C-alpha cells in the first residue's frame, strides 16, 4: 500500500468510531478520580502539618505562659516553621499542577522538575523535618527524665520514618524520574537510529 491508501484506511474510523462508551459511568468515574487525586496528594502533607502543629504549638504556648527564655522556645518554633514550609510548598505545587504546557516536551520537563522537587524534598527530609521534631521531643524526654525504653521507642520511630521516606525515594520517585528522562531523550534525540524493518 502507498501512504495515501494507508491514510484512507485510517480515515475510516472517523466515520465508524472504534469504541462505544457509557457516558454516565464515565462522568461518575471522572468525578471519583478527581476527588481521589485531590485527597491523595493532600494526605501526606496534611499529616506532616498536623504533626508539626500538634507537637509545636502546645510547647510554644507552655513556654510563653511560663515566661521561659527565648531559646527554650526554639525547638517549637522550628517545628512550626516546618509546617509553614510544607504549607507554602503545597500551595506552589498545586498552582503548578493547574498549568498546561504548549508541548509534550514542555509537559515532560515540568513533570521531571516536579519529580526532582519531590526527590530533593525526600532527600533532605531528615534535615528539615526529622531533626527539628527530634530535637523538640528529645529535649522534652530529657526534661521529664523519661525511661530509656521511651528514648529507644522514639529513636526507632524516627529511624522508621526515615527509612520509609528513603524507600519511597528508591522505589517510586527515582524510577519515575528516570522513565520521564528516558522519554525526553527519545523525544529530543535526532532521529539517527532506524526502526527495525
Amino acid at each position, binding site marked *: 500500500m502507498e501512504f495515501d491508501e*494507508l*491514510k484512507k*484506511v485510517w480515515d475510516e474510523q472517523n466515520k465508524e*468510531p472504534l*469504541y462505544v462508551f457509557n457516558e454516565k459511568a464515565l462522568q461518575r*468515574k471522572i468525578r471519583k478520580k*478527581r476527588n481521589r487525586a485531590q485527597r491523595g496528594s493532600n494526605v501526606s502533607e496534611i499529616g506532616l502539618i498536623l504533626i508539626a502543629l500538634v507537637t509545636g504549638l502546645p510547647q510554644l504556648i507552655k513556654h510563653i505562659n511560663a515566661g521561659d527564655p527565648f531559646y527554650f522556645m526554639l525547638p517549637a518554633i522550628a517545628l512550626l516553621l516546618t509546617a509553614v514550609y510544607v504549607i507554602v510548598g503545597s500551595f506552589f505545587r498545586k498552582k503548578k499542577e493547574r498549568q498546561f504546557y504548549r508541548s509534550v516536551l*514542555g509537559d515532560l520537563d515540568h513533570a521531571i522538575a516536579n519529580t526532582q522537587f519531590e526527590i530533593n524534598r525526600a532527600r533532605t527530609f531528615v534535615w528539615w523535618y526529622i531533626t527539628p521534631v527530634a530535637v523538640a521531643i528529645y529535649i522534652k524526654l530529657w526534661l521529664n527524665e523519661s525511661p530509656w525504653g521511651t528514648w529507644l521507642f522514639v529513636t526507632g520511630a524516627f529511624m522508621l520514618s526515615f527509612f520509609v521516606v528513603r524507600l519511597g525515594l528508591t522505589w517510586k520517585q527515582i524510577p519515575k524520574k528516570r522513565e520521564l528522562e528516558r522519554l525526553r531523550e527519545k*523525544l529530543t534525540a535526532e532521529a539517527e537510529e532506524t526502526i527495525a524493518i
Partner: protein
Amino acid sequence: MKESTQQQIFETWLHKHKALLFKVVRAYAFNAEDQDDLFQEITLQVWRSVPNFRGDSAVTTWLYRISLNTAIKWSSKEKRHKEGRQSIEHMTHILKESPKPIDERLAWLYEEIASFSEIDRSLTLLLLDGFSYRDMSQMLGITESNVGVKINRIKKHLITKSKKYDYHGV
C-alpha cells in the same frame, strides 16, 4: 470558569472528537482494562484542561496534545492491569469495542503503530490525521527538521511493511 460551562464544553468536545481520543487509546493501550483506564485518564485531563483553552489553536490540536501527553506518561508507568488485581468497580467497563468488526487493514496498521516507541506512535497518529510538520513540532516541542527526519523514517517503515502485508495477502 463556572463548572457547568466547563462541563458543557467538555461534553461537546467528547461527542464531536471522540474518534480522536479513541485513536490515542488504541495506539497506547492493548487490552480492554488498559484501554478503559487510559480513556478515563485522558478524559479526566481533557476535563481539567477546558478552562486553559484560549482558542489560539484548533480544538483537535489541543485535544491531541492533551491526550498524547497523557498517553505517553501513562504508558511509562509500570502499573498495568494484572489478573486478579481488579476491584469490582473497575470491572464495569466504560469503553467497549464497537459491535462492527474493525477493518483488517486498520487492525494491521494499529499493530504496526504499537511496535513503535511512545514518541513515534504520537508522530504516526498526527501524520495519519494530516497535521503539518509545523503543528507536530509545536505540539511535541521539537524542531521541524527533527520531525521531518522521524516522519520520513516512519513513512518508509509503514510502506515497506504494508507491501509485505499485501504480498502475503493477509
